[in-house]
Structure formats: structure tokens, C-alpha cells
């Protein structure tokens, strides 16, 4: 079987019980994606599948044959940090850094969802042309990513600073 991870095609063969997260961490040595609960409750394992965010601990690796996966290791381009990664450093969007890869991947896909016009539970005007990506929208849309260090303010500021100039 093969899978495309951060642009590279990788062949693998694992026990069918292996989660996508364990494939990455234990079999491929891509330990950037983190395990905080292994049951879909914390978001530390968030990766992008064809651009959409999923909890990789709840995904069986064998279901992702041929799919394009982006992990935190794939966010930087040619050694340059993604602007969101730089903003996380600047706005202190982490302390221990353990939830951080999940927060970053989640935020990238979250902004994409918002750009596509997907509403959230706090969106007031569902029919509106554009939804403002304000503090409450960001907080609601990022609530699947827990941070026990409590870096939430910094994370929201980093996301805002990175994406506020989007249309």
C-alpha cells in the first residue's frame, strides 16, 4: 500500500488495527503529530487529509491508501516556516508545545473551511455573504484542540494576525 505524506509517496504495510497516527509516529518516525488521548477527544493528532482536518488517532491507516496527508512536518516550505508557525512563536501560542502541531494543522484547515463559507455554531447570519473570522468564530472552530497549558489567547492572536488580511 502507499500513502502520500507531505508530498512524498511512501509504501507501507501494517497490522490493519494500526491507526494513521501510530503509522506516522511508530512506523514512519514522523513524531510531529502527537497522541494526547487516542480517542478523538483532544485534537493533538490532527493532520490534514486532502486539505481537511481529521483526528488521525481515529483513522485506520489502511483506509488512507493513496490519500494526501499533510502533517506538521509538512507545513514549512523549503525550510521557511509557514507564516502561522512564525505567528505562534511571536504570539506565544504554546507553552509545552505538545498540542501545538495539532493546533497548527487544525487552524490551517479551519481557515480553509471558513474561506469556503462553512458556518459554525456561533455564526449569527447563516445566509450572509461573508462570515467575519472574529474571535468567537475562531474560538468555536478551534475548540476541538485542547491546550492544557492554556495558550488559547496566544493561539487566537496568532491565527488572527496570520489570516486577518484574507478577503
Amino acid at each position, binding site marked *: 500500500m502507499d500513502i502520500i505524506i507531505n508530498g512524498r509517496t511512501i509504501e507501507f504495510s501494517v497490522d490493519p488495527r494500526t491507526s494513521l497516527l501510530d503509522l506516522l*509516529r511508530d512506523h514512519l518516525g514522523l513524531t510531529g503529530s502527537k497522541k494526547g488521548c487516542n480517542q478523538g477527544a483532544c485534537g493533538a493528532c490532527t493532520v490534514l487529509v486532502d486539505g481537511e482536518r481529521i483526528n488521525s488517532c481515529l483513522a485506520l491507516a489502511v483506509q488512507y491508501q493513496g490519500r494526501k496527508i499533510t502533517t506538521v512536518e509538512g507545513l514549512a516550505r523549503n525550510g521557511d516556516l509557514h507564516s502561522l508557525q512564525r505567528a505562534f512563536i511571536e504570539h506565544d501560542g504554546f507553552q509545552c508545545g505538545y498540542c501545538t502541531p495539532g493546533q497548527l494543522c487544525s487552524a490551517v484547515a479551519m481557515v480553509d473551511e471558513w474561506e469556503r463559507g462553512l458556518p459554525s455554531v456561533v455564526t449569527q447570519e447563516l445566509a450572509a455573504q461573508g462570515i467575519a473570522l472574529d474571535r468567537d468564530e475562531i474560538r468555536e472552530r478551534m475548540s476541538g484542540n485542547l491546550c492544557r497549558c492554556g495558550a488559547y489567547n496566544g493561539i487566537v492572536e496568532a491565527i488572527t494576525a496570520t489570516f486577518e488580511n484574507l478577503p
Partner: protein
Amino acid sequence: MSALKDTAKSAMQTAVRLTPDKWLPGATSDPLMHKHGLLGAPVSRVDGALKVQGKARFAAEVAMEGLAYAGLVHSTIARGRIAAIDTGAAEAAPGVGLVMTYKNAPRMKAPALFGTSPSAAGASSLPIMQDASIHWNGQTVAVVLAETQEQADYAASLIEIRYEVEPAVTSFEMAKGRARRPESILGEPAELEIGDAKAGLAGAATVVDHIYRTPRYNHNAIELHAATIVWEGDQLIIHDASQLVNATASTVAGVFGLKDHQVRVISPYVGGGFGGKCLWDHQILGAAAAKLAGRPVRIVLSRESVFRLVGGRTTTEQRVALGANADGTLAALIHTGVAAMTTHNACPEQFTFPARHLYAAQNIHVAQEVADLDMLANTFMRAPGESVGTFALESAMDELAEALKIDPIELRRRIEPEKDPTSGTRFSSRNIVEAYARGAEHFGWSRRNPVPRSQRDGEWLIGMGCATATYPYYRFPGATARITLNADGQAIVAMASHEMGMGTATTQAQAAAERLALPLENVSFEYGDTALPPGTVAGGSSQTASIGAAVIAAFEELVPALLQLAGNDSPLAGLKASEVEARDGGLGKIDDPQSHESYASILSRAGRKEVVAEAKAPMPLEMQKYSMHSYAAQFCEVRVNAVTGEARVSRFLGSFDCGRILNSKTAASQFKGGIIMGLGLALTEETLFDERSGRIMNPSLAEYHVPVHLDVPAIDIIWTDIPDPHSPMGARGIGEIGITGVGAAVANAIYNATGKRIRELPITLDKLL
């Protein structure tokens, strides 16, 4: 601690108190506390780039050849014996290399209990997997090693166990009936009385007297507890997630009958600690299994296993009784109560500590008891004692203010003590009144209507509350720092200390750069490895001061060594260490800008590649001479839905008085992190303990509710930045104070919003309907 040791300690304290300042080690204030270059600057974390790229390697991520993965089986009874255990199917399962139970585990000594010596780290003194007995519901009864985690977990599920159940005490109510007074509460007397508090209360004009209850809580750092463990001959190497590497190494050495230097603990990154990343059974079980199997082991606890094997904050029941005179001063302050504990640990949850130091009262009585249960050892969790103690005390203060019809900030101003109310010592630095005044102004406290339920926005009732936060200053003995200065003008400061997200590596590099007068990029801080000079525990908000004092000591060795190397051809020739200061990348004569030589020049002329100075910090006598505490005034605004009872925190401000702030960026984050954990303590978190079976019922992040993004408003942080003249760098601890006072600030705001006084945490919506 025995009564005899208590007496010796108090005699020592008296002696230290009478000693003139100039005789104490570190007698003069650290000159760094007045510098305003790097110190206090909002420097971004030095490990930031690694962390945002997922390149920081945590304990479960250390690559190793031939690793076996561990799966665990937990007991399902609280007390009794394993009558029969069938491991046959597990042993035959694919990939399994070892099944370890009490029958084949190596013989190991019980871990030395934390607090019994400076190097003891055991969270419990129970022997681990040495016999058939069961002491708590969740104890590990088998460890399976297999080629993959999936195989190990599956095989573990095949193990069959029959128990002989014995009666267990799993009800706090029942245990309270047999509560005992411990010999001491972390070295402080369990009971203390000044005057006659009962009589004072009886004669007081206004009295509030209530019981407050707080539940169990778990740290729930997002990183799961994990260790990657390998034996190299008779050397044991543990890649751990640890906030006390030295004590872990030495305690594990004791368990396996090794010398301390035969165990190395490495822990450069810790994915959150909060008191939970200490020595528990899993590191020892992992090492035992690695020894039996003859191969390296990775043991990663599942989230459920974290709840079953790593204790949390215990439950408390507290009485606070306040008696006030007509002018608002206190005739009596009583804070007593009981916490659940076990007979095999030493964590009494010191909830009476705040009442010992915060307020002037004519009569004071504090007393704590513990009630022994058959449960997992409870442990230290961010501000153990102070977090839940301030909930009770500061809720009571709010109740008294209301009864007296005085503003709660004004009440606290009237009972501000001149000196420590129970020890009688002077405060080293205390500016809580100022912190309140500034906080009130920034928060808009004057807009608060003291009449409950008077502000409304549609369905939402709005209220404001405040509370005092406090946490002691600790500096632990034994810290040793090494400074290596090389001919390129680069310095490495090293000590086996810890970075769990507090910003240690960044802040210590800043402080060392300032101390050595080097640019920040020339200085790095090495930590997290017992191969380095010994550090102290990252606990009690003590680490910054503990490292700082050792670095000062090493610097005091470094200067004379440099002067000696400088010799007679240097502009510094003939000068004594007391006549020079670090300046512009070298040493210079104090008050003489001309006489200066750079480190690089001194070393190259002496033909040296580097100079190394290593020294141990002096004993922390300042803690005995002065009453030293961090303080804050916490302000909260809540909105409570009148229909559903849902409470949302809409604004929060913390106004801190913690001495000098060393890095304004990371400090603000740490304060916020504490406050956010306090919001969880106040509103959403609770470890549910089945009082019939002794089993934790919500061992998952789905059912234990830590605050999420949407629960957390933008939090404002301000501070006095007044240096403490008696601490290294003028700084006091900032890691734990943030969580203190938050429970009461939220409860007081909810009272102001709704008129409902909730004295039992967490304040869930059912309590507000």
C-alpha cells in the same frame, strides 16, 4: 516530620530571623534585579522553532532499535488479593515477548516516598508488583511487552484474573469519621492557634461560618505519561517526561539496588506537568520489564491509564469562619478541614496555608486533618492547597464583605497585616493592596453593583467578583550550576532542571546573558539530563529562583577564575573580584569605563579554549528570615443564563505582585495558563470517583472537561514588577499563583450575578438552577 525535627526547625528559624541580613549568604540584593536590558524583555521561546515544526522529541518519541511496546492491565477492585491469574492466552498472542505479573517481576524495593529525603521521588511508598495484594482500584496487575502497541494492548485484554475482595474504605464520608491529624503539613504544624479563635468568633459583631467542598481533579497534561527505557549493562537509561530528574534517578536506583550514577534520566521536553509528571509506577514497571525481557521498552500510558496510575488533586471539605468587629477588622479567622489521602503517601493538600499568611486577625485557628481511603495516591497538582484553600477563604471574605456592606477590596485593605500574622516575620515584599488598586482600575470594578442580580442582558445575568491569589516563595537546596565560557565569547549554563513549557530555557538564558553581559544569542541553557550538575524539582514554583541562586554562586567562582587568567598584562591587573563587574562581553572595573577586557581576549591571551565554574547555591535561609509570597488580585466577570444556568466567563483580569518579571511574554502566558486551569477548577472539571467501588468513572478527556478555546475569554494580565530584595533576580515564583483565587473570583462573580452562593466546586449549571 517528627515532633523533634519540628522543634529543631523552629529553633533554626528563630536563629535565622535574629541574624542580621549581612551575615546571610547572598546578603546583598542581586544587582540583576535592577537591570532593564534583557531582563523582563518579551523574548520569544528559544525552543519555539523546534516546537512549531514538531521537531522537539518527547519521551515517547526517542528512536531505539529493538523496542518492545508495553500494554497494561489494571485491577478492578479497590482492595484484596489476586486469587488466580491466567496469562496463557496473552503469552500465546502474536508478537508477545513477555507477560510480567507479581509472579515473575524482579524483586524490587519500595520507592522512597517523596519528602522523606531530598532525593526521594516516590509518589507512594507501596512496593510495586511484588505480591498478590491490591491497594487501589486501577493498580497495575500485569504488563505485556509486544512488538507493537496494538499487539500489546490486544494481549493485555486476554489476561484473566480472579480476585479475593476485601473490604475497602472508598467513601470520604466514612473515612472522615476516622480522620487523623498528620504529624505535619509539609513541614508546617498541622494545627496552629493564636489567641482564642472560638471566643473571638463568639464575641464578634458579624459572623460568617460555612463549609466549602472541592472535588478531585486531574492534571491532564496533553502529553501522555511515557518513558523509553533501556538497560546498557548495569546502567539504566530512562527517557522520561519528568519534572524531577535527579530525584527520579536516585529513587529508581534505590528500587533496583543500584548506585545513583547508574541511572540516567533524560527529559529535555515535557508536554505539560503541573505536578503530575513525577515518578509513578510506570517508569519502574517499564524498567523491570526491560530488564526481564532484555530489550528496550517504550511504555506510554493510555489516557485511561493516566487516570488509574497517576494521582491527582484530592477532595477537601473546609470550614471557614470569620468574625468581624464593627469597623471591619477581624476578631477571629478560623480555617479547618479534612482532605482525602492514603496511608502510603504524603500529600495532605495544604489548604490552610493561605489563611496563615494573608490577613490580620486578633485570633486565628487553622487545623488540617486527613482521611485515609483505599485509593490511588493523590498528589501535588498546580498550587496544591492554595488553589482550593483560596476558594474557601476568599469566598468567605466575599460573604463577610456582603454581611458588613463593605466593598470586598476595602475589606481586604482594612485587614492587611503589618507582618506575617502567624509567624510574626517581616514580609520580604508585599504589594497586594497596590495590585488590587491597579487591577480594580483596569477592570472597571467601580462599575460593579454590589446588589446581586442587578445587571442583566436579555437572558444573561451579569456579575463581577474578585479574590486574592497567593502562593509561597520556595527555593530548594541542592541546586548546582555550571557556567562554561569559551574563547568565542559563548557561554553555556548547565543544570539538570526542567522545561515543561514554563519558559525555563528562555528565561534562564536571558538572565545568564544579562549576568555575564553577553548578547542573548551567545548564551544557552542546558537542562533535562541527570548527566548535568544536579538540579531541583520543578515544583512549588521554585525552579527559577533555585537555578538563579546556583548561577549566582557559579558566577562568583567564575569572576576570580577569569581575573587569575587575565594576569598582569590585563587592564584588570591587580583588581579583586569585588572591584569588577560583567560589562560588554567581559569584565570591567566598577565605575571606570576605561578598564575593561573581553572574555575572548582574557581566554585567548591565557591560551585557554574555555573556563568552567561550577558551584552549589547556598541554603535558602531567606525563606526562614522573611515571609515570602507571590500575590495577585483576580477579577472576573461572568454571564449566567437565567434559563439554563449556564455560566460563561466573559472577562478576566489578574493583577500580579510576584517580584521582578523576567520575561514579559512567557510570564503572561504562564499566568494565563494558571488562570485557565482555575476556570476549569471553578466551572467544569471534576474527577468522578465511585464511592462504592473506588473506581474513577470518567477517565477520559471526553468526560473530564478541561477548558477549551470557547471557554476562555481574552485574559488581561498586569503586574507590579517590584523586585523582591531577597530573591535571586528579585523574582518570586509565577507558575502556580495563577490558579489560586480563581475559584473564588468566579464564585463571587456568580453570586453577584445571580444571588446564589455556591460553596461546592465545580459550579455546574445544575447548582445554579
